[in-house]
């Protein structure tokens, strides 16, 4: 997982429990590593471009997420949706349920 992608995952993760955060990051990293190459190469390309743009514009990952969410370009919205989906699924499955019991 690229550094920018790691920052993005951290920005999208709501959980504060370090164990859950680590589990979420591990799941996203495993999913990206296991992705079909043609998809992974596309994601890496977008990550590199966005990483450079974010550095030049001095934007933090959280702001980048907000900008991508509002982008008129479907590909950019799909990019952030991919990360959000992976993070959300892992967070909800690994984290505690709202009534306090551990997740699955």
């Amino acid at each position, binding site marked *: 997982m690229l550094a920018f992608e790691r920052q993005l995952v951290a920005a999208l993760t709501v959980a504060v429990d370090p164990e859950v955060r680590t589990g979420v990051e591990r*799941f996203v990293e*495993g*999913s990206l590593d*296991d*992705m*079909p*190459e*043609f*998809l992974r190469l596309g994601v890496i390309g977008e990550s590199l471009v966005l990483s450079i743009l974010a550095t030049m514009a001095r934007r933090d990952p959280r702001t980048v997420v907000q900008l991508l*969410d509002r982008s008129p370009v*479907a590909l950019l*919205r*799909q990019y952030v*949706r*991919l990360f*959000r*989906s*992976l993070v*959300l*699924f*892992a*967070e*909800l*499955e*690994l984290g505690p*349920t*709202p009534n306090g019991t551990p*997740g*699955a």
Partner: protein
Amino acid sequence: MTRSSRIIETEVLIIGSGAGGATTAAVLAEAGRRVTVVEEGPWIDPDAVEPFSIEEMVRKYRHHGSSAALGSPPIAYAEGRCVGGSTEVNSGLWNRLPDYLAEEWSRTYDIDEFSPTALDAYAERVESWQSVGKVPGAPPLSSALLERGAAKLGWRSVEFSRVFRYEAGVADATRGVKQTMARTQIPRAIAAGASLLPECRVVRLERKGPRIIGALCRQQTADGGPDEDVVVRADHVFVCGGAIQTPALLQRSGIRRRIGSGLKLHPTIKIAARFPHLLDHDSIPMHRVIEFAPNLTIGGSASRRGHIGLALADSGLDHEDALADWERMSVYYAAIRSEGSGRVRAVPGLRAPLVTYRLTDGDMSRLARGLVHLGELLLAAGATELHPSVEGGPVVRQTDELLQWWNRVDRTRSNLMTVHLTSSVRMGNDRSSTGADSFGAVHDFDNLRVNDASLLPDAPGVNPQAAVMTIALRNAEHFLASP
């Protein structure tokens, strides 16, 4: 072949252990054939992993379940990758191939011995192996809601059978054991003498003129060391890797005529629905609304907390309040039979094939209609809030608001997925449109057969497992009867 390759000699090599491969293996092994099954994924005890959990996603799915057919819009898809294939991760719903489709396919693709009567005889036998039946007692509420909504609207719905086994006297739908291939046909094949090589990926088939003489494989070693090269020499080869992996392997082996084109799938659009009461989340609803079948079917999906979160996130709208109430929510879908089609292409140097799919404008229109009908049904069933898998939603609470969705379902905002992939090596005698003959023998080869979902000439409009197993039994017995 490398100098250090391990060589295995067998009579029949079966590549893949899902619905098609496992059925083929059991039938041939019990007929006394010397069978070796190679499976790319690992053996995982079916009781060891909770269904639809994140652990299942990591251990039993190919690509952690994160793959997509490229196109406008892209369509996410998931395949199993373990001994038993997708039967280990699917809903277990069971639907025979509809009679009219068997007749239509037989006529269009010139398929021999493909009458509904002939297929039903095979289906009955498979059903007896797989403990096919309805749930004992009342269906779960998430399923009954589909029936309730349909009844209020005057639409037809049915409770599908499933491949679940129940202890005698048990009347609790959640206590059945899904009869996956790892529980049924694979043990049956092994008991009859078949060998199973898990974590063994076939790199390519080895050819000599019109014959396949074996397969070059790489198998993971138990101690985590470097993969071992294995060459399996066989008199006959059945490729049963599913509609994506089967054409990819054939193409890697230089077999390309009518292979990989014509891919079909069931594009699916979803709604996360909120109800005023608690719902079950352990099983997939077994009711389906068939008022608009076969071109549009409405049903329910896996609805653990993670799945509900995913479905809510698809709209991109604020969903914290709904997510906090996830125990009153469930995910439902509308799936269409698509006019469009796709391609599977093995790309040199890449492990995964490139998959593309083109939806027609008619498909997009059917998906919009499906989403509106699904919304109508869920509101009739008592839902109070509907979150569509369409960017920007909007969230709907009343029937007259549903029409807002018509123009929102387009190529840039719709989030689609599928778990049913078929038709990438169609069967039939019409060589202009098929890659294999009426019984799965690849055209122009003496001893190479396909026996999985790739053979179905079109998407069946329902879960294809029943059709795959039925056709696999038919083709395996035809092979046994051949000189």
